[in-house]
């Protein structure tokens, strides 16, 4: 985590508030946000994008909404796994750990009881989609959230009838 933490973030941290995690997914069609926690109140306002006013000319010089539509923000995540780094085979393979670098990864389990992720997978390229994992606290503004991982989706699992899971890895 290289970016500076906001004062509100640090204050929430000191107060021992419960953290909130969001997965920002950028497919070719636009941006989707999945979270297990209540979303920041300003999330839609912050992503309002280009307005239809006289400031923007429809002359192809500007892509509508900056080229990335904000499609959805949902409390669909059921479980956010640990942010993992390092050699999985430790402590047995100490020598191997010297030869191997590891990208950080995170697995997010999503509700799929309405087949929403199944349908999404069939119509949007979820695999290899760019993504960000943001951490903040419930009640904080979106700008106070910190990005802890930037990567891409390297595995999509559709499990049984009710769950899907995305594994994201650092690029």
């Amino acid at each position: 985590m290289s970016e500076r933490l906001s004062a509100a973030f640090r204050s929430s941290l000191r107060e021992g508030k419960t953290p909130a995690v969001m997965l920002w997914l950028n497919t070719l069609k636009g941006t989707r946000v999945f979270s297990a926690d209540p979303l920041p109140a300003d999330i839609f306002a912050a992503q309002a994008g280009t307005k239809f006013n006289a400031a923007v000319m429809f002359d192809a010089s500007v892509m509508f909404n900056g080229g990335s539509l904000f499609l959805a923000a949902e409390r669909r995540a059921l479980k956010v796994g640990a942010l993992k780094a390092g050699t999985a085979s430790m402590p047995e393979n100490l020598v191997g750990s010297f030869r191997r670098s590891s990208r950080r990864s995170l697995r997010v389990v999503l509700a799929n009881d309405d087949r929403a992720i199944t349908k999404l997978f069939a119509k949007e390229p979820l695999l290899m989609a760019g993504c960000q994992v943001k951490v903040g606290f419930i009640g904080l503004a979106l700008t106070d959230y910190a990005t802890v991982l930037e990567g891409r989706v390297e595995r999509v699992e559709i499990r049984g009838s009710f769950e899907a899971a995305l594994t994201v890895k650092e690029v």
Partner: protein
Amino acid sequence: MAPGLDAKILLAKAGRYSNPANEADILPVVIGDHASGSGFGLLPTVEIDTVNHVFLVADHAVGSLTNVYVDGVEQVSGFTTSVSNNYEGQGSVATITFSSDPGGAVTARGEGLQDAGSTVESWADAVVAYLRLKGGFKDGDFDQTELARSRSQSAAGGYEMAWVFAEERTAKEWLTTLMAPVLGSHDLGADGRVRLFVHAGRPKVDLARLVGHVVATRDVKEGSQGVHLTYDAANLVNSVSARWGWNFAESKWMGAEDNWQTALSEKSQNLYGEVRREHLMKGLKDEAAARKVAEIILDIQPEPVGVATFKLEHMKGFGWSPGDLFGFTWMWGPDELDQGMVNRIFRVEAVSVDLARLEAKVTASETGYYLAGRVFFDAAVKFDASKRFGAKRDLTVYA
């Protein structure tokens, strides 16, 4: 029954001769044409007689020895070659005999093992030839139907092998090693014969291998919830970094291409970004054949390939083996028509049978094909563009 696939295939050592430079040196087997090509053909040698300066090229008779080199410099005199030399009564071998100590590393070019006067080089034939020569296999140990198909596919793909065998491995290890460069595979048929599979294009779905239908709600333990479908980035490829033309004498690749693509892979890159994989084609010396192999990879994996795992109940799946096909119906699977997976054809990758529970754990991959229903030429179907000819999806849930 084929000889043990797990037994190590041993090769002769230089110690069988009176004055070798090193008794432990393995006497190599040379398969294929190492006489022509863009520098791919250098053959290492083993000095089997330090007194008479005799160097062994192959532990069998060969088709030709066309060029001789010392420290990479071609020699034109001071030596004699023999494509079949029963040296010290130890059987026919290919040798180079110098009139005096050459004083450097001796290499050569030539054509390897012969069969009825022709150089063995077609890929399937080459694999069989090595296992027959050193592994104790006979013609009857190979499934002749699959072998004939693999031969024709080897010819269609232009897959010609140029290999120097100087390592001791089990037959199974050799089969895996030798088939991998051309995306081939092997297994044991029900009759115990070795089946070789070589493809000159994307493997076709052979409905003769359709072993059944799986309806998740009916056949899978825990029903629909018992299915786990995974799409992994590791199964997505839209650019191939290829290496071919291995020089056995100098241990280096002679052919390389870092970014082979097709029109299909460009579309894939637009969707998923560039996903490049390396494919090493040791023993394959022709660039056109290497390109063909790369195109097969790019044709198979430009889209994510789903891998499903589930357990079948009531002894279903007990007789299945890798490569078998089944129609899979699982309403929770992704589908472009949003109808769920109905009669999507999956290929069995692995089956593990639990005899205590009478369950079979199946791992299977998507083929990209569906079982299709036939359209009859009757009044029910009109040629008015409202239906696509022959493209009716079979939505029957099989009993």
